[in-house]
């Protein structure tokens, strides 16, 4: 029972972590917290769903199409919503991302309706026996893909020129600009990547949850994950997500009713009060 819950939590935590990763990527580069990340996730999942169920394409091709489309969507959001707002206060930016979230959600509702769908995302759910426990293959897939994605992103940000220029732009926009890095292009790419990560999270989420225009709200739970990991740290986001996922799952069986829903938020507030810089964050003093 305990181990089972931990594994379920681990899988859910990976998804929180992936959504949180989307936040972190955007935050690192542009200092915007994207409140619409969950809704991007929903759109991504629905795109793949449409390709498989209505266009009858094979799953991998559908995944590819969904990723490409989401990349474009991310770039479009950056180009037409956030780029004109550069220099506005952070609050305006946040409200803009909230507006994007609202728009995407109503768009999702208009296109795909308000029903709940079942979508297995090409993964058949068979129990896998490891020693004496039975583990759902869905959970294993989720974990494997998360690990893969982290490795890919790690190499991208540390070993490729495009990745390093993104890192540079996130540390100092003006200096990066003067070094000949196209800051606009970098931001645009970051949004694209972040939207793709969101799509992956959404597609992975659908086998364990249902597909619904409202599923973006699950994305909000990625905030505690990102904060716990220290907003701005890529491994932190994943670790934070996993901690949140497991503790939430355990709270569901060991604590009274209602705790499961808010446990992530309780952790969030505790972290913010005790160690606001999170597990992997760096505390910086403002200079005067």
């Amino acid at each position, binding site marked *: 029972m305990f181990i089972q819950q931990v594994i379920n939590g681990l899988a859910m935590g990976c998804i929180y972590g992936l959504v949180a990763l989307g936040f972190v990527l955007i935050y690192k580069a542009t200092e915007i917290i994207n409140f619409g990340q969950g809704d991007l996730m929903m759109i991504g999942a629905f795109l793949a769903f449409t390709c498989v169920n209505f266009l009858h394409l094979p799953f991998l091709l559908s995944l590819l199409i969904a990723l490409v489309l989401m990349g474009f969507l991310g770039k479009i959001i950056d180009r037409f919503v956030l780029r004109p707002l550069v220099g506005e206060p*952070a609050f305006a930016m946040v409200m803009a991302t909230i507006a994007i979230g609202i728009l995407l959600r109503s768009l999702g509702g208009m296109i795909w309706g308000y029903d709940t769908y079942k979508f297995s995302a090409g993964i058949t759910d068979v129990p896998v026996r490891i020693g004496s426990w039975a583990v759902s293959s869905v959970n294993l897939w989720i974990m494997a893909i998360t690990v893969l994605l982290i490795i890919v992103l790690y190499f991208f940000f540390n070993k490729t020129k495009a990745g390093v220029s993104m890192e540079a732009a996130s540390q100092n926009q003006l200096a990066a600009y003067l070094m000949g890095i196209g800051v606009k292009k970098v931001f645009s790419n970051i949004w694209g990547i972040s939207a793709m990560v969101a799509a992956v999270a959404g597609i992975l989420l659908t086998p364990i949850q249902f597909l619904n225009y409202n599923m973006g709200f699950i994305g909000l739970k990625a905030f505690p994950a990102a904060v716990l990991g220290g907003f701005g740290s890529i491994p932190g986001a994943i670790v934070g997500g996993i901690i949140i996922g497991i503790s939430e799952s355990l709270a569901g069986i060991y604590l009274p009713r209602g705790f499961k829903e808010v446990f992530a938020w309780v952790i969030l507030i505790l972290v913010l009060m005790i160690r606001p810089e999170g597990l992997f964050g760096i505390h910086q003093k403002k200079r005067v």
Partner: protein
Amino acid sequence: MRFVKRMNYLQDIQLFKYHSTIGWYLILITAFLAAPLVMGTYWVSLLILIGINIIVALGLNLVTGYTGQVSLGHAAFFAVGAYTSAVLTGKFGVSFWLALPASGVVGALVGIVVGLPALRLKGLYLAIATMGFGFIIEEIIVQWEPITNGVNGLSIKRPSLAAFSLASDKHFYYLVFPIVLLSVLVLKNLLRTSSGRAFLAIRDSETAAESMGINLAVYKTAAFCISAFYTGIAGALFAHFMRFIGPENFTILESISFLVMILVGGLGSVHGSVFGAVFITFLPEGISLSKDYLPTFIGQQAGLQAAVYGLVLLLFIRFEPLGLYGRWLKIKFYFENFPFYKKDTFRKVRKFHRTQKQ
């Protein structure tokens, strides 16, 4: 153009700069007092909702617009106020006239608790923390069934004043209107004193504010406390006006809609709070009225309201970040300086974003 000749210091701190302004406001107040006599019940109920929203907007503007602490959890204070009054009058038989201030006070106490993280957090972290509090309080309402009746919600009676019942909307209006007026006046008062300036100072530069001798902890908590008091009062009025409340009235979407209200109206301005409340209350009504005239495939969409909402928000952030109040100021400026207004008078200077990572 009008000029003011300053004769004494008292003149500087008056609420109204010109005598004529007082006249205009008196006319406006009289018009609103007379409104229920000539309006239908539908319009009066809209006015009441606007009034309740104005109180919330004033409170939220104090903490977000003036003090610069973004709160995504005001629906929680609204809920606390609503449930306090509902439970006190419904379950314990307390008079509404005691329950109303009590809901403000309980709201304020919760405000202090929520304000505590504000002492250590800046900007967006605080927004996330307040959002978390919002979720927690929503869940408490759902789970604490003996008091709140959980997801089934609570029914509430309209109050009465001595033998005079306020059951009809038109009568209830005369309860809400004075409270709105008082809220505006009190906030205006607060903002023209040292305390008010201290709030603004915290928004602009915490370091400098501290070196002015402003105790950041006290003022940030105070901002949350006063703001939550306002919102709690509004919540109580809302509960008695709607006669029925449930957890679904107080979700994160409600908090967002409060923020939209002050953003569309104008951050950091009392006028803006009023404009925003009017705009946001009318928006859904306007949409449902216009449904009949739109092509079917748009008009019949269930998500239409949310879509319009998001679109309006985006357009305001992009084209009028100062909100309706900013627009109002520009129009006023145009007429006051008639031939001299140029297109670029209010053009903003673009600056490179200065990184301030935490």
